[in-house]
């Protein structure tokens, strides 16, 4: 940051002083902040009509299409991944690094320098000055040493002629706090880049009972050609049963080339198979307030089931460097493959678990009545005329309609999972709906990020660096012991590079110890 004194600046000097200039810092700071604001107003990665609406609000309906074209050409609709925004971040990192390197030697000298006595004439110019008479019985030098120790400093001593000087310093290294902070930001950026480079972030919609070996990129493919290529590769994957070595040899490429192709097309092999055994939403009491989204997942590695875990939001599954997060869910359109899981119990008998699809029948234990599953509703409610309808798009209140045939009588009845009073069939037997399985899918976020630990290391450094930079200070104290007619007195000089207020209170304590020491 300082002006460089050389007469002839070489090219590399010029580059260096460009990157270390405070002007660059200000320009980059402002550009990042200002362009970021635009990126929060325009929704990122949204459908064109969303931002057209935003723009018509802002600039009027006539100017909006033009504005949209301009902003779109400048990548503002996906700006945080655009080349110019990433360049700004890179410039920011370079500026930070060069500025720190530029200033580091000067600070390092101060940090390394051992505590040293101060020439008597310099005492007048000190940041904090004080004088105090030794009123206690002790030897002034002993008292001063004790006083230093009492406020937590290690005393050093220097005598010249008849004058003794006690001096000390503490936390010189705290001047490095600001460098730890600056470096930590670069570490975080390195971690982020490493994660992008060596890892992936994909999504996976997994219906109950199904298995997947790859996740997909969240965003839409850029071009139709890419989308087609992705589809072809997915078909091939299916054809080879996700056997990557086999697929590589079929395509006549090496395995690492295949990995590169897959990544560029937004297909990420997990390295194992993942099966969704079950998905469920828990609600608070009888309300429709979701309490938990739960997916029971099984990891199948090398043909063997190695791990089964129930994941929730905030409770992901980790296996072989891949983390699987609960992120969304949904319902399939077709209920015909769904299986109702029912507990059937005859009068006085034990309960039996039954599984049946729509159209299938079972015999109730005990009574021998036939129960046929005729309908399913994910969120049952009845309208004014008593007709059933689904009040929500999700499985908020699953219910099945059964036809009960006992003897000649035929009756229809809705059985609701949430309400036990609907489980009784009237003849003493009970049919409890435990679940309707196979019609929901779980939306998973799947990630491999080897850089995340570097990011966390950077965060730790950032926290520590800021603590040191703001709450610790390099404190120095010098005390000259001068003999006068009325007794000895201490002339104090002290300095702290920040938090002077707290340091002054410490000096007040030192003064009290000096005045009363040895009493």
């Amino acid at each position: 940051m300082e002006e460089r004194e050389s007469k002839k600046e070489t090219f590399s000097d010029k580059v260096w002083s460009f990157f270390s200039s405070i002007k660059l810092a200000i320009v980059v700071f402002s550009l990042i902040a200002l362009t970021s604001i635009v990126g929060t107003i325009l929704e990122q990665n949204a459908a064109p009509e969303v931002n057209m609406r935003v723009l018509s609000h802002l600039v009027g309906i006539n100017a909006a299409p033009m504005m949209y074209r301009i902003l779109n050409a400048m990548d503002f609709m996906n700006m945080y991944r655009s080349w110019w925004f990433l360049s700004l971040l890179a410039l920011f990192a370079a500026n930070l690094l060069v500025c720190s390197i530029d200033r580091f030697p000067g600070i390092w000298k101060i940090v390394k320098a051992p505590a040293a006595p101060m020439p008597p004439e310099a005492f007048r110019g000190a940041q904090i000055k004080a004088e105090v008479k030794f009123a206690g019985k002790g030897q002034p030098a002993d008292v001063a040493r004790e006083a230093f120790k009492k406020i937590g400093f290690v005393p050093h001593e220097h005598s010249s002629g008849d004058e003794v000087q006690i001096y000390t310093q503490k936390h010189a290294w705290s001047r490095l706090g600001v460098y730890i902070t600056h470096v930590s930001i670069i570490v975080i950026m390195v971690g982020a880049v490493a994660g992008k480079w060596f890892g992936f972030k994909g999504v996976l919609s997994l219906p109950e009972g199904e298995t997947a070996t790859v996740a997909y990129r969240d965003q839409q493919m850029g071009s139709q050609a890419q989308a087609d290529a992705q589809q072809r590769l997915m078909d091939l994957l299916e054809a080879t049963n996700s056997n990557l070595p086999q697929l590589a040899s079929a395509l006549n490429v090496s395995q690492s080339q295949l990995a590169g192709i897959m990544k560029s097309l937004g297909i990420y092999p997990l390295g194992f198979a993942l099966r969704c055994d079950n998905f469920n939403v828990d609600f608070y009491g009888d309300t429709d307030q979701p309490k938990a989204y739960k997916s029971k997942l099984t990891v199948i590695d090398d043909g063997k089931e190695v791990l089964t875990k129930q994941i929730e939001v905030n409770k992901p599954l980790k296996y072989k460097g891949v983390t699987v997060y609960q992120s969304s869910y949904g319902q399939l359109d077709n209920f015909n493959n769904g299986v109702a899981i029912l507990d059937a119990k005859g009068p006085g008998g034990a309960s039996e678990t039954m599984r049946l699809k729509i159209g299938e029948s079972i015999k109730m234990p005990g009574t021998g009545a036939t129960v046929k599953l005729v309908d399913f509703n994910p969120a049952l409610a009845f309208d004014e005329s008593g007709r059933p309808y689904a009040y929500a798009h999700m499985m908020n209140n699953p219910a099945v309609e059964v036809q009960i045939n006992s003897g000649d009588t035929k009756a229809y009845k809705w059985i609701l999972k949430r309400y036990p009073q609907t489980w009784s069939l009237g003849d003493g037997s009970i049919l409890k709906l435990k679940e309707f399985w196979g019609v929901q899918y779980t939306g998973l976020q799947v990630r491999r990020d080897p850089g995340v630990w570097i990011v966390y290391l950077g965060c730790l450094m950032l926290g520590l660096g800021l603590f040191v930079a703001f709450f610790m200070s390099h404190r120095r104290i010098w005390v000259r012991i001068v003999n006068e007619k009325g007794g000895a007195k201490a002339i104090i000089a002290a300095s702290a590079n920040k938090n002077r207020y707290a340091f002054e209170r410490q000096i007040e304590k030192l003064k009290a110890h000096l005045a009363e020491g040895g009493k």
Partner: protein
Amino acid sequence: MNSSQFFGISTIAYMVAMAIYITYIAFKKKGIGVTATTVATIGFACQTIAIILRGVQLHQVMGAGSSLLRALPITNLYESLIFFVWCLMLGYLIIERRYQNRSFGAFVTPIAALALLFIEISGASNPGFKEIEPLVPALQSNWLLAHVTLSFISYSMFALSFSTGLMYLIVSTHKNEPAYVFWTVGLGIIITVLAAMGIDWFRYKELGLTSENFVKSYLFRSTFRSDSGAVQAFSVLLAGLVITGVWYFGAGLKKVIEGFGMSAATLDEITYKGIAIGFPIFTLGGLIFGAIWADQAWGVYWSWDPKEVWSLITWLVYAFYLHARLLRGWRGHKIAVVSVMGFVSVICTYLVVNLLLSGLHSYGNGQ
């Protein structure tokens, strides 16, 4: 008594305390000052009880066995604004003790009052939106406590330095200076926006909207966005008059604040202290803890969500403040303007993002 009654008492106490603090400045009688502090402390105590009671209720709603750490009632706009006021008053009462100066209260209690007023006129306290709601799955994490409390502590530190920074500008600028225009126009805009929001609130409160829908669809519909062109023109004219008025009579406000008996240097010092404490807390609690939590809940520690971007902008503004002050030795108007801009960015991060922009942080509007 239940939590809303205690909230009611604390709101009244803060309003009364505001009036007494202002009276105290006018008369400088110690008795008045002590009364102001007492009333503010009572308000703070009632608010503390109310927050605890609400936490207990939330814990009951969440059901047996739920973590006590997650029963902190800061899960919607209403609760978070109240928590913000609580942090602000706590910070103020500590500073009052430490600096033994009560005049400052006349500037902090109005911020508390404004926040409480905002709760009303933004519809955050409409029936249906201030009820205790159990936590949605994404919020069920122990990071909630660390992330949200530290964020709000830093917000209130920034609010303190905003108020001292603004006071600094008021006492140290003269009519022909740019910084004078900056604070008078800024204050004029704040008054205009709040007044316009107040009118909308009176007109549309029957609709019982959420704050988000109210702001998105009805904000300024009675004034600047009215269907009638005449009303629009009149509103703009009136706003212009208000802003010009603040600019013209700004010197009067200067006299009032000079009466606080705080030197410009002290104001500058407190502004810096507020930021020096708020910045590391914001970095740790807001950015780092937020990133760790997002990583756990969504599998992305940073997703350029509007809330995250605005936090980053806020962070950059305050980082700029610190570098300009410590490295370039900026003092006076320039640095005070930066501290005010920083808080404008905080307001954007906290309110504008939640009310106007979409994103992951819309206070539990689904998964």
